[in-house]
């Protein structure tokens, strides 16, 4: 497009002030739009490069505005041709240099924070004013010299643009903005080569129109950049829309999956709690049956006792009932516990001991039960209950010939964590010989031995102001 336009301009030698003004205005508007677009991109993507470029183009836009407006008014003593040379040509150079320098500097500044923007703008504006002042003293046009160049003062501009092109080109994997600037900068370099051969209107020459070609090229370069930046923005928008719709889809999918999983979990939970309820029901039923059967056996034993004449046999069966009661009481506690597996052993020991005392002791035996709270399961509760039954019964049977006395049941945890069960009385104590004789024959002592070994316990029996039986067993607190 630039090639075609440039060729047309050169063939028809177009060089009218009106056309010139149109192109200047276009360059001003195009660079202004570029600055705004870059500013928008920098806000959206937070790229310092876009931000510094926006500042460079913003300063350029002001310079272009000055270049456009200055040609429209001239001082009263100047002819139009004089004004053309003095002002139009005089303001071209500063804006051409400032744009190439600004775009190049933005590249160098791209790794710096955006807050340097104000300082950058100020430096560019001061530089522009300085250039404006300098170029007022330099000649605008010279007779064709080296290679026919008429404006040697502008030779730096295409060189700077070439350098910028190279710099932006080298910015591999950089932001998309960089490659857009590279393409535009190469066109700028080309356009500013043409201005080197431009002449004022009153220089008859074959190179008429080169100035316009340069203007046209500059506008084309701005427009090219504008187009690229718009494309970048549009691509961004398209990408964002696509990402948003993907996100929406993903969200829907996730919501659906969460819904499914939730209902699955709710279902599993219901099944689980149903299974648990069934388990509880079944366990309660089993405990109920066990208790009922124990009660049944107890009833049979009760009936049997009434039919016996032999006092020893009656005593033996009463002993059996005490043991049955201990077993039944364990199951009663289990049924009442929340988890149906464990219960606190301390009220159980109290109830058990009281029942034995009142069953055979009479009213002159006092009982004290001091048990720490201890959660136990069947494995511990049954041997412990039976042991207390046997030991308390022993004391009642042997310790108090006159029927008066005191029995103490203590369950405690020692400092090393071992559990200790103590059953003591303040009775007659025992004679070692007699005791070992009894050990050989008594059912009670045989049961005690069996229960002690089942608990993997140690038993110590002492005779000291009565009988003290101490049973040590391990229990980690976990039933």
């Amino acid at each position: 497009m630039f090639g075609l336009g440039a060729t047309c301009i050169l063939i028809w030698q177009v060089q009218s002030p009106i056309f010139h003004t149109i192109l200047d205005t276009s360059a001003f508007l195009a660079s202004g739009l570029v600055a705004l677009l870059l500013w928008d991109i920098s806000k959206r993507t937070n790229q310092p490069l876009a931000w510094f470029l926006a500042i460079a183009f913003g300063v350029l836009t002001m310079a272009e505005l000055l270049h456009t407006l200055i040609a429209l008014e001239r001082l009263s003593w100047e002819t139009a041709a004089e004004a053309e040379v003095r002002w139009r040509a005089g303001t071209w150079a500063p804006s051409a240099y400032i744009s190439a320098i600004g775009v190049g500097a933005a590249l160098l500044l791209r790794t710096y924070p955006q807050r340097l923007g104000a300082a950058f703008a100020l430096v560019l504006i001061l530089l522009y004013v300085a250039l404006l002042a300098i170029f007022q003293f330099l000649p605008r046009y010279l007779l064709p010299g080296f290679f026919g160049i008429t404006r040697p003062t502008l030779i730096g501009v295409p060189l700077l643009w070439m350098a910028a092109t190279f710099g932006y080109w080298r910015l591999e994997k950089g932001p998309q903005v960089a490659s857009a600037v590279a393409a535009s900068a190469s066109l700028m370099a080309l356009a500013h080569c043409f201005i080197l051969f431009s002449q004022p209107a009153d220089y008859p020459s074959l190179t008429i129109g080169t100035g316009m070609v340069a203007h046209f090229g500059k506008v084309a370069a701005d427009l090219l950049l504008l187009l690229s930046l718009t494309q970048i923005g549009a691509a961004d928008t398209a990408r964002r829309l696509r990402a948003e719709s993907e996100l929406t889809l993903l969200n829907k999918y996730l919501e659906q999956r969460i819904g499914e999983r939730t209902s699955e979990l709710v279902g599993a939970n219901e099944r689980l709690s149903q299974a648990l309820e069934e388990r509880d029901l079944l366990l309660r039923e089993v405990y109920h049956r066990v208790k009922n059967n124990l009660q049944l056996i107890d009833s049979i034993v009760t009936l049997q006792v009434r039919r016996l004449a032999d006092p020893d046999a009656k005593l033996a069966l009463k002993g059996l009932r005490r043991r049955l009661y201990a077993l039944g009481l364990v199951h009663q506690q289990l049924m009442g516990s929340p988890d149906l597996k464990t219960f606190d052993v301390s009220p159980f020991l109290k109830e058990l001991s009281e029942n034995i005392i009142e069953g055979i002791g009479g009213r002159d035996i006092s009982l004290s039960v001091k048990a720490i709270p201890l959660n136990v399961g069947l494995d511990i509760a049954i041997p412990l209950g039976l042991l207390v039954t046997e030991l308390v019964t022993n004391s009642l049977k042997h310790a108090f010939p006159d029927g008066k006395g005191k029995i103490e049941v203590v369950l405690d945890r020692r400092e090393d964590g071992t559990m200790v069960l103590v059953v003591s009385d303040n009775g007659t104590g025992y004679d070692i010989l007699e005791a070992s004789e009894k050990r050989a024959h008594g059912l009670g002592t045989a049961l005690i031995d069996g229960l002690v070994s089942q608990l993997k316990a140690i038993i110590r029996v002492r005779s000291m102001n009565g009988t003290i039986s101490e049973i040590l067993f391990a229990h980690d607190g976990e039933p």
Partner: protein
Amino acid sequence: MTVLEKAVLIVEDEHVIAMGLSAQIEDMGLEVCGTADTAEDAVAQARIHRPAIILMDVRLRGKADGVDAAQAIYESVGSKIIFITGSREQQTIDRIKLDHPFATLFKPVSDRQLATTVSEAMLAAGQA
């Protein structure tokens, strides 16, 4: 309400247990006026014998249970009712409480528990 008999009615669907309880009551020197194994039978016998005390199991044969029987007897006869239950479930205990029980004993019931409760009930019924 007329005066009740100084006797005990035993309601229990396990006949052997009923026999055992009868033996225990008799050992205490009291009269057992009868045993029943359904709620209907219990109500009928309670109306005939008008016992001061009824030992009532919760689980019985048939549809109605001991709680239903106790309700009917409480309204028509007014015997002191001692529940003897194998269950320690809160649900059962709550139902029993609605029925104005004199006491609730949990199986296994020891001789002394039974003896104490029965003599207290007799005292309450004015039959001591």
